């Protein structure tokens, strides 16, 4: 362990934590504005220009509220649950490459060789926060929310894991940086023929990749408890579900966890399907072609390239977050049995068959 690695890692951790937290607060603001615009309202527009300081006002409100613990709760788990809801959502971002390199430092906190497994392992811990909150609150609506959350998780974790297997059949290992590297060379997985467009057999791969993407996206929606699948929360049926008994900062932590999960979910989706930090830029040096930008060039050009990659990554994440919100304010919630049916009878099978399709294509293409 050299000190350079430790110091750069610490800097990256602090920077990414700060970035994620500010993104969370502005995602809440964006959610309110987007929902308002979709419903022909204006949304928060009072605090600061166009309401841009609203997250700060909200933060102060939540921090200054009385931290109240109801009498009949299981205090230990009641306090543990919000922490468990936030922690996994933020930790997952550690293995996601959010940029190429900046001054020679790779822009990923931990480039572990079990990348996607780490993501799934940690992300599925997030459900414990909700289940514990539901259990510890000692109240019927949170309890129902917790039960729903656990059954939702077992319905969706399977298809979530199976959906990404075709990608790793292509890439050959589980490291997320090599997933991005592969996409730079061969084209993004959402359209895997772009890099090798001369080989028409590769075009066939688009079919399993699109199926993969749809199943994965739907599973991510379920994993992050977003709208068509927000059964644990279900404001209308369960009065807020697992967080009914929570207030002030503990409630804010659940909120933060939900949005952080959304951001990390989008980040994983960007890494797996939308080429991570890669964005081809048009170039006119020696005729028109698509140039590749990263942080490897010396001096300020390299630094600019690295920053461009980071900006690209977070711009893609922001677009996906908008799509998350757009879908939330369009679709009604699924019924409980419909959700289980979808998870077990459709997406599990589709993901399973999809693996064989992808493997078949890979086995026969030259």
């Amino acid at each position, binding site marked *: 362990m050299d000190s350079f690695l430790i110091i750069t890692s610490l800097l990256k951790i602090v920077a990414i934590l700060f970035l994620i937290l500010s993104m969370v607060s502005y995602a809440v603001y964006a959610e309110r504005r987007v929902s*308002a615009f979709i419903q022909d309202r204006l949304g928060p527009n009072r605090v600061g220009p166009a309401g841009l300081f609203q997250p700060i006002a909200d933060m102060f409100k939540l921090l200054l509220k009385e931290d109240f613990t109801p009498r009949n709760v299981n205090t230990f788990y009641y306090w543990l649950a919000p922490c468990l809801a936030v922690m996994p959502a933020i930790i997952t971002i550690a293995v996601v490459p959010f940029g190429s390199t900046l001054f020679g430092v790779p822009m990923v906190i931990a480039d572990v060789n079990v990348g996607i497994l780490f993501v799934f392992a940690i992300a599925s811990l997030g459900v414990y926060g909700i289940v514990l909150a539901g259990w510890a609150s000692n109240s019927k609506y949170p309890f129902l929310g917790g039960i729903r959350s656990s059954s939702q998780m077992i319905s969706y974790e399977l298809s979530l894991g199976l959906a990404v297997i075709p990608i790793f059949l292509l890439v050959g290992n589980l490291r997320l940086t090599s997933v991005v590297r592969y996409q730079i060379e061969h084209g993004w997985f959402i359209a895997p023929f772009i890099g090798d467009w001369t080989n028409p057999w590769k075009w066939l791969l688009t079919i399993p990749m699109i199926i993969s993407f749809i199943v994965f996206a739907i599973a991510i929606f379920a994993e992050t408890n977003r709208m068509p699948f927000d059964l644990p929360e279900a404001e209308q049926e369960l009065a807020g579900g697992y967080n009914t008994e929570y207030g002030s900062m503990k409630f804010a932590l659940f909120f933060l966890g939900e949005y952080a999960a959304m951001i990390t979910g989008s980040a994983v989706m960007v890494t797996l399907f939308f080429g991570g930090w890669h964005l081809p830029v048009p170039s006119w040096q020696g005729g028109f072609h698509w140039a590749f930008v990263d942080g490897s060039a010396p001096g300020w050009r390299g630094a600019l390239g690295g920053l461009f990659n980071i900006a690209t990554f977070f711009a893609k994440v922001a677009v996906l977050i908008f799509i998350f919100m757009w879908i939330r304010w369009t679709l009604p919630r699924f019924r409980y049995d419909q959700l289980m049916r979808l998870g077990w009878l459709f997406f599990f099978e589709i993901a399973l068959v999809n693996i064989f399709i992808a493997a078949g294509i890979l086995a026969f293409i030259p």
Partner: protein
Amino acid sequence: MAFTVPRPKLNWRERMYLPAIVAGLAITFKHFKNMLLGRTKVTMQYPEQKWDSSLPDYYRGAPALVRDEDGRVRCVACQLCEFICPPRAIKIIPGEIPAADRFAKVEKHPEEFDIDMIRCIFCGMCEEVCPEQAIFLRKDYAITGFTRAEMVHHKEKLLEIGGVMHGVVLKWNEKK
């Protein structure tokens, strides 16, 4: 008696849901886009934009006392409004007009005239019942205050809101 709700037969396209989801997304995006382009009519932004100029003449805002052309408070302290007031928001203490006064023949005037604006329901019965046309509902609607005491409009405040009303009642003029 229990009965089965008939479920419509869906074809495969409808059962896939995806076309319907895409159609729904298109609708919500249209609303989002129209809002961004400023094509959607939205709520009036109250403190910046007000509807004061388009209030109708019959608008029932805060009740107020008026003076006539001679500067006399029109109210003769008959207390009809105090009796009619459904929430009992009005309190009047009548007083005598001294004989030396120009309007001595009116005999009474309100020493105190309080309207509790917390109680007032803006019904306009005081205006309807007033035989002297002395109390009117004006167009002030934003009555605010930090304390309950502040929300009681005394005579001076009521006269200030009311201003001067010309004509209508001329029976106390000296010429008549």
